[in-house]
């Protein structure tokens, strides 16, 4: 489970103050302080990483997909994208990205949406929303389903055509690709390392990711 590919991020290098592996299908929560860098590594390739950010000092302020899209005039996230909150502030910016494009339209899978998208018999399957709900419930009684807006899917590819078509396409990520973000405020990070098995978002094979935090400066 902890095997790293040769071109993965530097492991336990002195500059990283936190270095953790999140197994396939599991949630992760952590705090990144203003100025610090957050790096998410797709260790084995084509792994969707469902992610939300909250202002750590006021969790009612949180990542907003539509404010981010509107402000940058573009649907996709990559280097230079400013991740905006529901009150318009820049929470983080993407400062490095060797994958090239990340999704923020595809949302998170849930037991209920799986019944609609695939079959009623899929309800039992593990989902990102179950990860989100459990992580929030264990973290803080003030956070619940109301705090789960449209999220980011790092390393996921959901192209929109000029005619308005939308599909989950095969991933464009690969083993060792990563995205690095700088926090502009103290942020609470909520991640579900996506367990979806019914579409190509994880290449039908969910795999572990690595989460690194680097000190400000």
């Amino acid at each position, binding site marked *: 489970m902890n095997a790293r590919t040769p071109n993965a991020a530097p492991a336990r290098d002195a500059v990283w103050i936190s270095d953790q592996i999140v197994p396939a299908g599991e949630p992760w929560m952590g705090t990144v302080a203003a100025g610090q860098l957050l790096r998410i590594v797709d260790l084995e390739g084509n792994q969707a990483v469902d992610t939300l950010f909250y202002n750590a000092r006021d969790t009612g302020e949180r990542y907003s997909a539509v404010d981010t899209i509107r402000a940058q005039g573009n649907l996709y996230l990559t280097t230079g994208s400013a991740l905006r909150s529901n009150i318009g502030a820049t929470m983080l910016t993407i400062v490095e990205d060797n994958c090239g494009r990340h999704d923020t339209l595809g949302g*998170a899978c849930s037991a209920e949406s799986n019944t609609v998208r695939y079959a009623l018999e899929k309800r039992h399957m593990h989902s990102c929303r179950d990860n989100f709900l459990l992580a929030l419930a264990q973290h803080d009684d003030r956070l619940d389903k109301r705090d789960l807006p449209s999220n980011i899917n790092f390393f996921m590819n959901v192209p929109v055509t000029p005619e308005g078509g939308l599909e989950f396409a095969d991933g464009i990520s690969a083993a060792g690709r990563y995205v690095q973000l700088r926090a502009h405020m103290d942020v609470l990070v909520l991640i579900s390392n996506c367990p979806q098995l019914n579409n190509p978002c994880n290449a039908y094979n969910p795999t572990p990711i690595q989460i690194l935090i680097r000190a400000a400066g």
Partner: protein
Amino acid sequence: MTSELWTENLKPGEHWSGVLRRGTSLRITALEPRANVAAIMYNYESLPERYNLADTLKAQHTAFLTAGCVCYSDMGRILCSITADSCGWHDTLCGLSDASLVAEKFGAGSFQQRRNEFYKNGRDSMLNELGKYGLGKRDLVANINFFSRVTADADGALHFDEQHCRAGDHVELRFEMHTLLVLSTSPHPLDPQPHYRPRPVALRAWVSGAASATDPCRLRCEENQRGFRNTEMMYLP
């Protein structure tokens, strides 16, 4: 229409909220060209259940809304169906304007200067209405922008279609769930027009009944058949 329930006109910039019961339909009509009606919907009986942009798009393999589409909640259920649409495209990707955007584009437009024609913005308008139900910024989720068309090129860059909405354009929503509907007539955030000029719209509600077994929204795709099934389970005797 003998089953008509009520009509109301919204003034340019006005925000509004109300409850539409299952089996009720609502027609929204643009009274002038270039209207925009931002909308968010909640299950009136369980407000944490609300419109979900991603589930709506994923289930129907579309990046915009038009007749035949339904609007999904986050619980695999359908808030409303779009049963008629004269303009063919409604945006749901671009969110709301906010106070800083409106000030930057249009300058100062305070109540003290303009009385009830003061410059409103989408986010504050929604927060105004949400507060009446005990909701707030946690409940600001991705909205629909009825009558607005925004396309994306191959690189994802957005283009606002200034010719899209004509006077008289209308969209009809049939509510499949008891729904709290929140509306703002503030201009679309990507509309490049240089002056603050929201447009008036008309609302008309009537009793339409729920979706039939052969309803086009139900039959649009297998996903929607399951979405209707999930919704109808909530209203069994």
